[in-house]
């Protein structure tokens, strides 16, 4: 029999270490909570600032009117249409090109040194300042290709700008598809194209969509490269996609925000709200499409 250790004594032996472990766990939890709280607080402050300044200016006249030096009749209609045209064009061009490039790099190109170099370079491209793309776009699309100061020049420039983001996100999404899916497709006698189309792409679609939406959000918010490729600031007419001048919402915001008169700052805030709503709609659309697409994935 001797010295039987009672359960109580045994617990006491571990007590100090347990306390320490629990404490460090609590601390970590607290740090994480503080991080998210800081983020949320910044967001709330930002939203509060924009909403309190902008909401009084936001009415139907603001959405349907053109820009004016008179703040009470100033609106964003040409800029809103310009932004919409731009995002549609960018989406049409960036989506197929980006996804195709990603498919090539993951499914076709193999694992040579050249492909890994290509991937590294594409990652680097996503870090290039957007103004550089503006300079490139001015030379390439406006002058050499002769598109002039049109929406299409701007859209092509922004497409180049967001392509790296689209490609990287798509590559990650395609890589995340288990190889079993590919092997299964081959086992059923699928060709490589059939495998890609019917096994890989549907499985990767939700991830690809997320990448596209993030990229589109960036496209909607760009200002600097567009000023370089000749987006105008004061446009009273509805922009045409392939001819004539255009402007976009962030440029309109920039103009108003840098004016000396406080009323223009209210207009800028109102235009920011419109951009935020546009982005929310885009994000909601993505979530919706994502939810639909992932219905069929079962693994």
């Amino acid at each position, binding site marked *: 029999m001797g010295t039987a250790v009672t359960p109580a004594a045994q617990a006491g032996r571990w007590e100090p270490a347990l306390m320490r472990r629990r404490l460090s766990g609590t601390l970590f939890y607290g740090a994480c909570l503080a991080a998210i709280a800081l983020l949320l607080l910044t967001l709330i402050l930002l939203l509060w600032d924009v909403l309190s300044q902008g909401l009084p200016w936001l009415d139907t006249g603001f959405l349907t009117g053109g820009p004016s030096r008179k703040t009470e009749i100033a609106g964003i209609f040409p800029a809103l249409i310009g932004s919409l045209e731009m995002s549609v064009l960018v989406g049409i061009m960036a989506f197929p090109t980006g996804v195709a490039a990603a498919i090539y790099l993951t499914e076709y190109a193999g694992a040579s040194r050249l492909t890994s170099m290509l991937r590294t370079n594409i990652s680097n491209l996503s870090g290039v300042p957007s103004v550089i793309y503006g300079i490139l776009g001015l030379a390439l699309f406006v002058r050499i290709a002769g598109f002039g100061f049109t929406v299409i020049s701007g859209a092509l420039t922004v497409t180049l700008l967001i392509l790296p983001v689209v490609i990287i996100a798509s590559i990650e999404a395609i890589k995340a598809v288990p190889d079993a899916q590919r092997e299964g497709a081959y086992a059923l006698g699928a060709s490589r194209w059939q495998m890609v189309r019917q096994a890989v792409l549907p499985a990767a679609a939700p991830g690809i969509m997320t990448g596209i939406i993030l990229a589109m959000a960036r496209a909607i918010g760009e200002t600097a490269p567009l000023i370089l490729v000749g987006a105008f600031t004061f446009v009273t007419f509805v922009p045409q996609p392939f001819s004539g001048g255009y402007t976009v919402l962030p440029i309109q915001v920039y103009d108003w925000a840098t004016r000396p008169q406080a009323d223009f700052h209210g207009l800028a805030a109102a235009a920011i709200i419109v951009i935020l709503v546009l982005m929310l709609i885009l994000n*909601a659309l993505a979530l919706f499409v994502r939810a639909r697409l992932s219905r069929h994935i079962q693994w």
Partner: protein
Amino acid sequence: MTIKHRKRLGALALLATIAVGACSGGGATSAPSSGGASDAPGGASEAPASQAANLSGTVTIDGSSTVFPITQAVAEEFQIANSGVQVPVAFSGTGGGFKKFCMGETDMNDASRPIKEDDEGEGLACKAAGIEWIKLQVAIDGLTVVVNPANDFATCLTVAELSTIYGPDSPADLLWSQVRDGFPAEKVERYMPGADSGTFDYFTEEINGETDAATQFATQSEDDNTLVTGVAGSKYAIGFFGYAYYVENTDKLKALEIDGGEGGGCVAPTEATINDNSYAPLSRPLFIYPDVAKAKTRPELKAFVDFYLENTTALSAEVGYVALPDALLQEQKDTWAAAVGG
């Protein structure tokens, strides 16, 4: 199954939330509170006399962001009077605008400084491309040097003292007492516009004697509102920017008088002193550069410049600048008429 449905429902719910949010946002028709109090001078809201009818085409303009508000106001009124003409205006800066203008890509350039004749991107490019330009002054801006309202020691600075503060050799920890004996031994907190702006170019040339020569120890911003906030927030701060930014913030800033050293003594920036150039040397001319050759063949461009010179007095005052003296304005009109022949 239920999970999939829940996902769809979640997405739908989100969409609906946003739609509702958008609608309530759009429906909030509470009128801008300060809209009615807008201090638009009555003179400019009378629509300027309508121009020759049936003009059509597009007049494209780029250039200085300082001149932009005037050109925007003129373009707005011109398009009301001539509905067939489109006048988009951009502001990629005086230099950026000249690069496009000298490639024939724009019809007119706004400029807050004269064109650099020997610069490859400006004068030389224009000559190479056969672009025939003409310089027309349209308004005056008074660069205003401001300090914090709590600053009770400085009311007037000489050009030499400004150069002590903003000159290229100014030390990092410059004290006010080093600017003038009797000022407190506190560090001068310097603010100034970004190096790309015409405001910066003009100030450095007039005060430091050389364009772009300036201290590296000032906080710079492309947005003058940031400078306003900076100076308004610190007792020992100093900054400078266009007159309109001071006029909108007289409660937060104190404008300094400037002694130009030509015997005029200390002069405060006001519309009168900027207009008659007694506020020297910081009264800055603002220009437009129309393409003369194009104006000869395109009536809408000629009409636009005519309209500009006709209405710049009222419109530039409305957007916060100072109008030209009548004699000087007449000179611009004569120059323009002589250039385009009529």
